[in-house]
């Protein structure tokens, strides 16, 4: 089975030691073995189509800024602070 543990670790934003990589290789192979052995039972799967709960568009109190920032490792001027972020992809 061909796969790159490094690429997976990259996606997950985790750094691995070579030993961890080796150990994980075994785990990955095992889960793929399991998956290929999975027996899919016959019969239809039911899909429920109940209308979901949606929220009314009414504003409620937000947290205070102090509460929002109370666990921040670093804060400045009412904002979270992190090392300079440039490049990569912005959301939205």
């Amino acid at each position: 089975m061909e796969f790159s543990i490094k690429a997976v670790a990259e996606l997950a934003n985790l750094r691995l030691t070579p030993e961890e990589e080796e150990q994980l290789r075994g785990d990955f192979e095992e889960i793929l073995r399991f998956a290929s052995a999975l027996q899919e039972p016959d019969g239809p799967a039911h899909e429920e189509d109940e209308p979901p709960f949606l929220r009314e568009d009414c504003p409620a109190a937000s947290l205070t800024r102090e509460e929002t920032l109370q666990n921040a490792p670093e804060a400045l001027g009412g904002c979270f602070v992190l090392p300079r972020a440039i490049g990569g992809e912005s959301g939205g």
Partner: protein
Amino acid sequence: MDKVCGMTALGLSAALRRRELSAREAALACLARMEEREPQLHAYLTVSRDEALAEADAADRRLAAGEPLSPLDGVPMAVKDNLCTKGVRTTCASRMLEGFVPPYDAEAVSRLGRAGAVLLGKTNLDEFAMGSDTGTSAFGPTANPIDPSRVPGGSSGGSAAAVAAGEALFALGSDTGGSVRQPAALCGVVGLRPTYGRISRYGLVGFGPSLDQVGLVTKDARDCAAVLAATAGFDPHDATSSRQSPGAYLDGIGDGVRGMRAALVRESLAEAEPCVRRELLRAVAKLESLGARVDELSLPFLKDMLPAYHILGSAEASSNLARFDGVRYGFRASGVSDWRQLIRESRSRGFGLEVKRRILLGTFVLTKEQRDAYEKARRLRRKTASSMAAALSYYDFLLLPTSPEVAWKRGEKRDPVAMYRSDLFVVPASIAGLPAVSVPFGEENGLPVGVQLVGRAFGERELLRAACAVEEGRA
């Protein structure tokens, strides 16, 4: 102290109402029991003594005025440390959240607060609830109160140990793949995983949102019904919580099982240790003698549910735990110069090995290349859930062991097959979103055995009635 710590929640409630003792005395008794046993057990990560006594005093004032908020008013409880508590640190037993103080309460916690229950503290767990022996906690393992050389099960091992040791009268836990039922079985207490959506997940730091449920650890089925009544119900902050109204769980709980139909899952007998098999069969005989009909039923896909569970649970975990990046809260690695490094290092140093393993596994099965495994697991889940629901359209409940074995020794090398098997019987209810309860039934060399009843979706009332009958018939 011994008197209080040995009581059930409802027993204490009655005593509080009769003013035989005060809520403050009850809280103090549990705190004293902690002082005695915690050095050995380590069931708690945080004890909020002062807040607890203040809450107990408030409960006493209500009780003295004859205006208790609920049957749980003044009853001391413990909460698993992956349920957010406003102003009380919530760590998930991880370095990642070592100093995290939530600005809000989990819905289940605030409901119990409104019911007057007294929060004593936060209990230990496997890091981020990933594990089955409360051994992956970053702050050290919890011991089994019955034999401290043994594991309490997990991941809600702290909650189960606290209740079993009388350090709380009941506790909240969480159950993704058996995390409440299995430790309850290993510690000799009752553990309920309600139907998916029965209790709000808001504020539960779960890892697999489609599998996570807030669970209950209590001393008996009646307490379980009382705590469920206080916590169940729709929450507009959890879109997956059910709008179906909760049942009157205590009504008729002692009415017995006469006329009920149960199904013993045949595959479970072969997979369980002899002592567990023995107790399960004894439970069957007991149920029959109480007037229930017990058939055997084959669930051939039982074994496939475990890998499906691991694939789905890890996939969701990889996404759910991605938010821990050291930016807005939690552990932040020092000595980094750019944000990518900040995120990578904070995560690599903040998470323990088991958590990283599951995140990576989950990331792996969601990649384009391995997508098939994930999709297959999803299909299998839908279909097995339908099959179980179909079986339960005829049977009132399914009967299985909770754990295939009794509590094992901490550090004991276990064979990989046993490790693998340990979740085998608890995962099906999780996968299917069905309610399931573990009830202590019999023992092996002083170590408790649990039997598991899996009920119909939102059929907790009938399920707990059956659990109550099993419990009363266990002597």
